[in-house]
């Protein structure tokens, strides 16, 4: 396998074979482990999202071919679950927990503050691709409410002001260290609000 693909290029699956992008090997491994069973679609989508950060069209076509499933079936499953994202995510992301305990402790005000400050609706990415604002159903850390996850780091007992300043610092930091090409952050806890 040629191990030097360009990272930025969208993966392309030709005739059911990976383009050479090593990330496809991860998917192939999962497919093999699950014996190409159609029932394994969700597991395969999990692997794909983990490897690529989001589910591009070509990726869905590749998975559908490998599992011998109709395209609309695969698309239907991928869009049913909020975990799967069909669009690329921002360089930085902030997931605000909107579970009951956090809501009671006014997490909605944090979301509103972030929306106002960065001009982005929950579930969306800023036009410059720098920042994605997401909300989650419940991160199960109710004792620490309100909770949010900034680039995979759990922050407890936040206020609108503290969150805005932390996100601002994060974005400024990114601008300064843009050189090393920040990869798409893969937070441990993520529930992506659908389109």
């Amino acid at each position, binding site marked *: 396998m040629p191990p030097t693909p360009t990272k930025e290029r969208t993966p392309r699956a030709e005739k059911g074979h990976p383009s050479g992008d090593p990330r496809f090997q991860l998917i192939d491994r999962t497919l093999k482990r699950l014996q190409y069973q159609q029932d394994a679609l969700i597991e395969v989508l999990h692997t794909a999202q983990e490897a690529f950060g989001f589910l591009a*069209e070509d990726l869905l076509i590749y998975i559908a071919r490998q599992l011998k499933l*109709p395209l*609309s079936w695969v698309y239907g499953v991928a869009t049913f679950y909020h975990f799967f994202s069909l669009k690329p995510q921002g360089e930085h992301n902030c997931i605000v927990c909107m579970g009951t305990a956090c809501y009671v402790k006014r997490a909605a005000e944090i979301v509103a503050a972030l929306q106002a400050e960065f001009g982005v609706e929950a579930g969306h990415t800023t036009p410059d691709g720098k920042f994605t604002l997401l909300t989650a159903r419940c991160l199960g850390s109710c004792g620490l409410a309100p909770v949010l996850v900034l680039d995979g780091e759990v922050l407890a007992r936040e206020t609108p002001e503290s969150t805005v300043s932390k996100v601002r610092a994060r974005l400024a930091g990114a601008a300064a260290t843009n050189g090393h090409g920040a990869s798409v952050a893969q937070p441990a806890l993520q529930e992506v609000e659908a389109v």
Partner: protein
Amino acid sequence: MAVITLTINDELVSGREGDTLLTLMREKGIEVPTLCHLDGLSPRGGCRLCLVEVQGSNRLVPACITPAQEGMSIVTHSERLIKYRRMILELLFSERNHICAVCVMNGRCELQAEAAAIGMDHVRYDYLTPQLPIDASHQRFAVDHNRCILCTRCVRVCDEVEGAHTWDVMGRGVNSRVITDLNQPWGTSKSCTSCGKCVQVCPTGALHLKGSTVAEMRKDRDFLRWILDGREKKQWILRNGGQESGR
């Protein structure tokens, strides 16, 4: 096949084991509204219009999918059921932009007809007025999502009868939408055979023939009977002791 007896609206009815309540009700001439159900397609139980009361249980059951059981006693038109059916129709009309006056199926639409039959003459809920596209990229057909009630007859006929599975549903909840292939323009779908079965089974004007204008569209479902009868008799299956291909 065992014969069973049950009571429908205080009247004794006999049927065969495995019959659904809806089958027996229709045999008796008892009409309840249905939208997602279509004879010949797998049952779904999604529209909830055919709900009936079963005595001894406070849960309402969909007649289209509930098998008749010996000794069952059901009521099909209680005040509560009529009220709920009306409300469900109101909800359907409020969900998308059902402007009958400018619809290709005006006068022949099942949704419109059910509303008239039940006397649902106005909707008390907010009209949600979502912004929904019309896809006319297919050479012969078009889909107007404003008229779609998500009954999934198109999905089922495409999968179960045509065998193409071009259609499916994307998203969830009120944001669900029927899609072709990867949510791409219908005209670019690789799996669509352009057979038109989906268009014919659609209860509203959501799927229609291009070129038809207000109140011009007619739908013909005879094909379903022919195909399914043939399939049942195995007319098109090689008699090599092989397996039945249908589901």
